[in-house]
């Protein structure tokens, strides 16, 4: 029982066998339920606004993020420079927008990487009893390595960079994805519509791809809404330690890291990038909570 509770499969009786075709309608219903919950709807709005601002950073930012101005160095927040300026006179608001873009890119790409590796392995482990012990033992071994140690090792091999951070976070996230995909497969494999497909002579590939995977998507989406904020924080930690994104590229972690020596003269330099991280991860977690409740078929509507 070395599994954190949130990754356990639903222990109770499986939901009524939903044929794959019902999934889109179910998802539309889920979206409506999320929007009715003010916290998760708020989370969704904040995430959407921040993603938009990050994506359009070049257009939205009031200054180019690398523009230095030695007349306005280390200025506290003002109407002109909302988040103040750093020791080179660079506008911190613009840098936070670009930093957010880098951090979110690392976060999302790393989770995509985890999914690409973890989902097939999880499906195989759940579907073929022969492969299960091998893959599960591999998963345990990976979990035996604290994530940071993996990142440290990768940074030592590849050298610290944005790519290294993405790979480290992506690989670090694989075991969790394997577990979710595996437990979903174990659950779905026993359901009637899968048994019917097998009896109908469907090939293993067809069963996995057409019946099991589409029905495991919900659980994977929920896991992703937990993994992405964790990866964004992970990126900031790695970059803060100098193992991830390197200056002058402004990721939120890099900004906090380079603010540290100027702590007494320009505390705002460390404050705003951190607030951006907290706001984004908090909003995404709130949305994720709502999503989990909405997609959980066991949840009885009150």
């Amino acid at each position: 029982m070395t599994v954190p509770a949130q990754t356990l499969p639903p222990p109770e009786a499986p939901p009524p066998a939903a044929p794959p075709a019902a999934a889109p309608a179910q998802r539309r219903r889920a979206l409506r339920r999320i929007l009715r919950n003010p916290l998760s709807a708020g989370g969704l709005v904040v995430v959407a606004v921040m993603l938009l601002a990050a994506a359009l950073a070049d257009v939205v930012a009031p200054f180019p993020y690398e523009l230095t101005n030695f007349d306005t160095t280390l200025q506290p927040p003002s109407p002109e420079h909302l988040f103040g300026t750093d020791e080179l006179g660079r506008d911190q608001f613009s840098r936070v927008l670009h930093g957010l873009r880098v951090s979110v890119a690392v976060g999302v790409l790393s989770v995509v990487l985890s999914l690409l590796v973890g989902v097939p392995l999880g499906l195989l482990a759940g579907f073929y009893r022969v492969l299960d012990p091998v893959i599960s033992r591999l998963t345990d071994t990976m979990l035996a390595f604290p994530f940071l140690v993996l990142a440290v090792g990768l940074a030592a091999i590849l050298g610290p960079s944005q790519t290294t951070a993405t790979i480290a976070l992506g690989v670090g996230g694989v075991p969790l994805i394997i577990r979710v995909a595996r437990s979903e497969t174990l659950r779905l494999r026993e359901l009637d519509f899968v048994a019917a497909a097998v009896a109908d002579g469907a090939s293993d590939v067809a069963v996995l791809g057409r019946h099991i995977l589409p029905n495991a998507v919900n659980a994977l989406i929920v896991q992703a809404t937990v993994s992405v904020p964790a990866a964004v924080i992970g990126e900031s930690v790695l970059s803060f330690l100098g193992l991830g994104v390197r200056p002058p590229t402004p990721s939120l972690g890099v900004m906090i890291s380079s603010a540290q020596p100027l702590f007494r003269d320009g505390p705002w330099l460390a404050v705003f990038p951190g607030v951006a991280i907290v706001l984004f991860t908090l909003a995404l977690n709130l949305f994720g909570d709502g999503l989990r409740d909405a997609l959980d078929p066991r949840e009885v509507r009150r």
Partner: protein
Amino acid sequence: MGRYLLRRLVESAVTLVLATMVVFAGVRALPGDPARTLAGEEADPAAIAAIREKYGLDQPLPVQYYRYVENLLHGDMGRSLRTGLPVTETIAAALPVTLQLAVFSLVVAVLIGVGAGVVAAVRRRGPAEWGANAVALLGLSVPNFWLGLMMILVFAIAFPVLPASGFVSVFEDPVESFRHLLMPALVLGTGLAAVVMRQTRSAMLEALSADYVRTARAKGLSQAQVVLGHALRNSLIVVTTIVGLQLGALISGAVVTEQIFVLPGFGKLTIDAVFTRDYPMIQGVVLVTAAGYIVINLLVDLLYSVIDPRIRVGGGDL
């Protein structure tokens, strides 16, 4: 019980062997020739060949791996390239710092986490539950290194009441040790507290609706007796497990915390080793961390199976 114990022991041993293989392979995957690195930039080919022979780098990989494990079993992890000191000794010197920090953080996490979890479960649908949920969410959303910086900003710079850095052992000066470790322990403990709180709350909710609690109430026991004597006692099984599992995350968190508060512990050793490309040291810290992780997981599993007999019967698998 015997069979389960044996199975978990074998599994842990296999995982540990795999870990040594990964560490061994990882170091071989590093860019550059280690013999050349050891010999220095301007070494002549003869010197490089000599080093290669001395360290057995001219042997086939399985032989090298065998030697590596042999040395490990003798407690020999080589010498640091940076300081020339044995890796084993250096790690042994740094561990007490990290352990004191970890224990203090654990206390913080359990006090806050269990307390808030119980309150949130007993007073449902009120401000208490809402507040506890908010704290838990914040705990998951605030990067702990940033929280550490903000605490330094407030408690060491704006209102200088606590030292911003340094370490004093609890065995030398308990008061100063407390002052030095308070902020690091709060930083490291809050993330864990959020997890503990969530688990405590859901375990308490389940326990409070169980039959034995209804029986206890029917017997006329007070609310405090029911909550603390019955529900909490049974919930602590789950909490113990979660705390055990989170010890690994605590190790990762300690790396960052030690970096912020300049504590000369295991985590700082790790980061310094990476930046100075001190490969024997990297190899050592990675392996020690992995071994610690595996042993903790084993102990937690065994503890759990002692507390909850169903695990043994079920074989501990999903």
